[in-house]
């Protein structure tokens, strides 16, 4: 009985119907959080003594970096669940997470280079974190590409899952690389233990931005997965019924 919820997770239809109800309050909430967090950080947080206003890009850059790493783990875990229990839904989540994660990694790289120009004097520096963000983008792209070139859908899902699981070996190295090849990039600003090197008036909007990004990530993952479900289950009865009711609604 206790495992019933877990088996429900394997059903794309159950997921689609549940998330339809969740989205009515979750979508406005995450957009509102994002707007509040970014406005607070970009407009109302105090100006930095050394970097001036340019530091404000951290409110876009840093949560995206956090999420692109966390998203990789999520993708690999979803792939692992799909491989072990042979469920359809985790594979769909994995494919969607690859797209969302690649977009966030690209955002991290772009904002990072825009931030680097006023502070380091260069758009691109061969620094450990820069390199590994780029490599993370390649890891995401390789999974997206592998999923697209395979002729059979099920085989593509399993192949991507194996690649994602092997790629997770690289993710701890991304974190460790900061210590190994420390050069221009500043060390991590937020520490869970000990005091942070960032003032509370700048820290609180940053934390809010991270929470908002997590919500926004979940939102985009759900939306992407729903789209993936509809695309893959297009021939099933419930999807065609859904389409019929939707189109009759729009006619009224």
């Amino acid at each position, binding site marked *: 009985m206790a495992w019933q919820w877990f088996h429900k997770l394997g059903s794309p239809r159950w997921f689609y119907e549940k998330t339809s109800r969740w989205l009515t309050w979750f979508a406005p909430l995450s957009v509102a959080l994002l707007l509040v967090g970014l406005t607070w950080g970009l407009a109302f947080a105090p100006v930095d003594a050394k970097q001036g206003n340019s530091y404000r890009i951290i409110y876009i850059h840093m949560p995206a970096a956090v999420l692109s790493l966390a998203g990789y783990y999520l993708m690999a875990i979803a792939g692992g669940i799909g491989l072990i229990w042979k469920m359809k839904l985790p594979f769909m989540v994995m494919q969607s997470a690859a797209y969302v994660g690649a977009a966030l990694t690209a955002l991290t790289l772009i904002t990072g280079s825009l931030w680097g120009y006023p502070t380091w004097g260069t758009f691109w520096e061969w620094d450990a974190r820069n390199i590994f963000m780029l490599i993370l983008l390649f890891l995401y792209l390789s999974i997206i590409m*592998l999923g697209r070139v395979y002729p059979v859908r099920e085989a593509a899902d399993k192949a991507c899952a*194996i*690649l994602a699981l092997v*790629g997770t070996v690289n993710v701890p190295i991304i974190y460790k690389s900061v210590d190994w090849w420390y050069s221009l990039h500043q060390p991590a600003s937020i520490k869970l233990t000990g005091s942070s090197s960032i003032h509370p008036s700048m820290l609180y909007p940053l934390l809010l931005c991270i929470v908002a990004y997590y919500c926004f990530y979940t939102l985009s993952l759900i939306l992407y997965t729903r789209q993936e479900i509809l695309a893959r289950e297009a021939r099933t009865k419930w999807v065609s019924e859904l389409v019929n009711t939707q189109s009759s609604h729009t006619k009224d």
Partner: protein
Amino acid sequence: MSEQSTVTTSAWRTIVARDLKLIWRQRTDVVNPLVFYLITITLLPLGVDPSRQFLGSIAPGMLWIMALLATLLSLDTLFRSDYEDGSLIQFQLSAEPLFLTVLGKVTAYWLTTGLPLSLISPVLASMLALPDGGYIALMLSLLLGTAIMSLIGALGAALTVCLRAGGLVLTLIVMPLYLPVLIIGANCVGSAVAGFSFLRELALLGAGLAIALIVMPAAIAGALKISANQ
């Protein structure tokens, strides 16, 4: 217990012997990476400043990058012929575990690419005016590094064996996973040239090889089951 272990080692040995024999009959394929390595290293000084000082400063990285590209060159053929003539299905049907077969194939592959590349690297290093301290570090790091890269590359080859134009995808899959090996390997030679101890980097490469030996054969076997059975 001992009987079982002899059976498994003999299975591994059979595959290694079979693959070595097959490769020997197609000798030109084996020479390909070596020729590529030789040619790129020869072309390099013609494209840049050929002074000994400049060449010596870029030699550790260049020798490593060219070796990496050379191993990529022949990767696509690793499972190709077995896939096309149906041997891959037979490997899966046989009583021997697939990961042992895979390990045998990767061993034979490394013996015919990684090992020769490492062995000729000192000659090419002297052409690139690598400073005196770096030769042993170069050979040892290439020996360990090419073994890791063979295991990683075999995964990419296994995932793409069923694709018509798998080459580009293979490169995209394998390159990010090669990166730590390249960094540590080039660092190993670099610190040896600078006169420091390079044992730390060698130990890291050895640890990487140990992990790859545990993880990769199973992953490659899983990938082969997926790509061969569609």
